[in-house]
């Protein structure tokens, strides 16, 4: 070991923590996985998840990397509006509550969001939807894998490749052994760890640095951060809201949860999860505002949160930060692995390739796809290309185009598949055009707007009415 003074933790301690956590999570995942007898158990935790675990998993999956890394980053860049605007992402969970109840009612035996699009809109829209889903899932998986490597390196000097490999192996491990049950149970514990850690860090920060001195330093040297009329922040606000709505409304991460929750629990769980999540980005974001007062100016804005926390709390605190960040990344990564492998198993393998596959066979294939996804993510993360991490930046253009097709598809029988497909494709293309021609702050907004207009025309011009029964009948044959 040559030099460790630059890092809050030394590398061997970092590595020990990773290995200990890894073993604990994997054994826990295996323990929970013993109850999985069928593919339904594995993919949807037996469709009987109660309110406590349901609310915690809704919140924890949404807390995760977004809140511990992105909220401080946005606060560092956009100030007060950055953190308040970020907390508006809770609206995604809250608005998904009625949709989740509707999903449970329309397709009590459904498996994935892809199932819904296929039954409701047909093949063409399904293709558009599945491509958007896969692009988004990979963007997120890669950014999480890379964030894992970069953050463990920033905190402890542990090599990027080791951090990235370890976090992928651990998440693949317990998701593989335990399925959605393990994902949900670990989410509950990870949620508690993250919140307690974040509250402790913020409280300690206020106690040592004081709100007055933070306010004074920021207002004299970085005045724009406290300005409520900060143009870029105002422009970006609703774009971020639509990005969040698109992420939640389309992603199988949230659909599989809605389908896994017990009867009436889905609505309450998403509502409660959203309300509990609402104040968290402001607490984590606030940590970034203390950076100038502490003389910390991060190499890149997304590292500001952990750097401030590690600086203020010293070595003992750095362990807390390490564990919080690690839990945060893991609780998103596991959910994404589980939900994306379900999508591949159910929508692509079972429905397109092997329609006669037995339940046992599907369960095994689901396991293989978790491993496959892990390996593929690992390979893409290996060269540590910064540009890949930026992939998630324009994912907003993709996901926001699904908002109206999903919402109208669930409630409005007068929207046909052709229009839904056009709304997603044209919406995405317009969003991407906005991203490259105008700026990142319009991508999701333009995408959602264009797709809403196409959907409106579709509903207005439609003369036939979709029979909701079709979702049930085909489901029982499946």
């Amino acid at each position: 070991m040559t030099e460790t003074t630059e890092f809050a933790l030394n590398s061997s301690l970092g590595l020990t923590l990773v290995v200990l956590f890894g073993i604990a999570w994997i054994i826990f995942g295996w323990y929970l996985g013993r109850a999985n007898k069928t593919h339904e158990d594995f993919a949807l935790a037996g469709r009987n998840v109660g309110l406590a675990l349901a609310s915690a998993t809704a919140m924890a999956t949404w807390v995760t990397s977004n809140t511990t890394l992105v909220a401080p980053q946005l606060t560092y860049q956009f100030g007060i509006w950055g953190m308040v605007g970020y907390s508006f992402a809770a609206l995604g969970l809250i608005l998904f509550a009625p949709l989740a109840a509707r999903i449970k009612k329309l397709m009590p035996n459904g498996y994935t969001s892809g199932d819904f699009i296929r039954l409701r809109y047909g093949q063409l829209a399904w293709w558009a939807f599945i491509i958007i889903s896969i692009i988004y899932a990979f963007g997120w998986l890669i950014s999480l894998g890379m964030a894992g490597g970069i953050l463990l390196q920033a905190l402890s000097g542990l090599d990027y490749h080791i951090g990235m490999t370890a976090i992928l192996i651990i998440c693949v491990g317990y998701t593989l052994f335990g399925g959605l049950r393990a994902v949900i149970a670990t989410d509950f514990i990870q949620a508690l760890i993250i919140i307690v850690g974040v509250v402790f860090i913020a409280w300690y920060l206020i106690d040592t640095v004081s709100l007055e001195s933070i306010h004074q330093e920021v207002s004299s040297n970085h005045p724009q951060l406290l300005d409520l009329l900060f143009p870029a922040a105002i422009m970006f606000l609703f774009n971020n809201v639509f990005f969040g709505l698109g992420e939640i409304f389309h992603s199988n991460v949230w659909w599989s949860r809605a389908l896994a929750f017990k009867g009436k629990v889905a609505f309450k769980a998403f509502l409660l999860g959203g309300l509990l999540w609402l104040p968290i980005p402001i607490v984590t974001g606030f940590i970034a505002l203390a950076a100038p007062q502490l003389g910390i100016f991060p190499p890149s804005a997304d590292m500001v949160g952990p750097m401030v926390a590690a600086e203020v709390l010293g070595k003992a605190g750095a362990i807390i930060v390490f564990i919080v960040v690690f839990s945060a990344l893991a609780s998103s990564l596991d959910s994404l692995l589980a939900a994306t492998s379900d999508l591949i198993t159910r929508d692509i393998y079972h429905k397109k390739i092997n329609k006669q596959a037995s339940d046992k066979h599907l369960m095994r294939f689901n396991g293989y796809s978790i491993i496959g996804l892990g390996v593929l993510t690992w390979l893409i993360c290996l060269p540590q290309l910064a540009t890949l991490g930026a992939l998630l930046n324009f994912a907003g253009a993709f996901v926001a185009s699904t908002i109206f097709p999903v919402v109208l598809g669930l409630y409005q029988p007068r929207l046909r598949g052709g229009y839904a497909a056009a709304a997603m494709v044209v919406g995405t293309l317009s969003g991407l055009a906005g991203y490259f021609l105008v700026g990142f702050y319009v991508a999701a907004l333009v995408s959602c707007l264009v797709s809403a207009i196409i959907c409106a025309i579709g509903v207005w011009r439609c003369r036939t009415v979709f029979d909701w029964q079709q979702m049930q009948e085909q489901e029982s044959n499946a």
Partner: protein
Amino acid sequence: MISLDAFSTLIMACLLLTACAPLILVVLWVKDFLSKQLW
């Protein structure tokens, strides 16, 4: 520019609400556990 009072109120209120979240989750868990409604 946001005043010190408004800034402090916002942060402290959110900190307090966030601190309540684990308590709510644990209470719900105990309730579900006792009534065997966890899974």
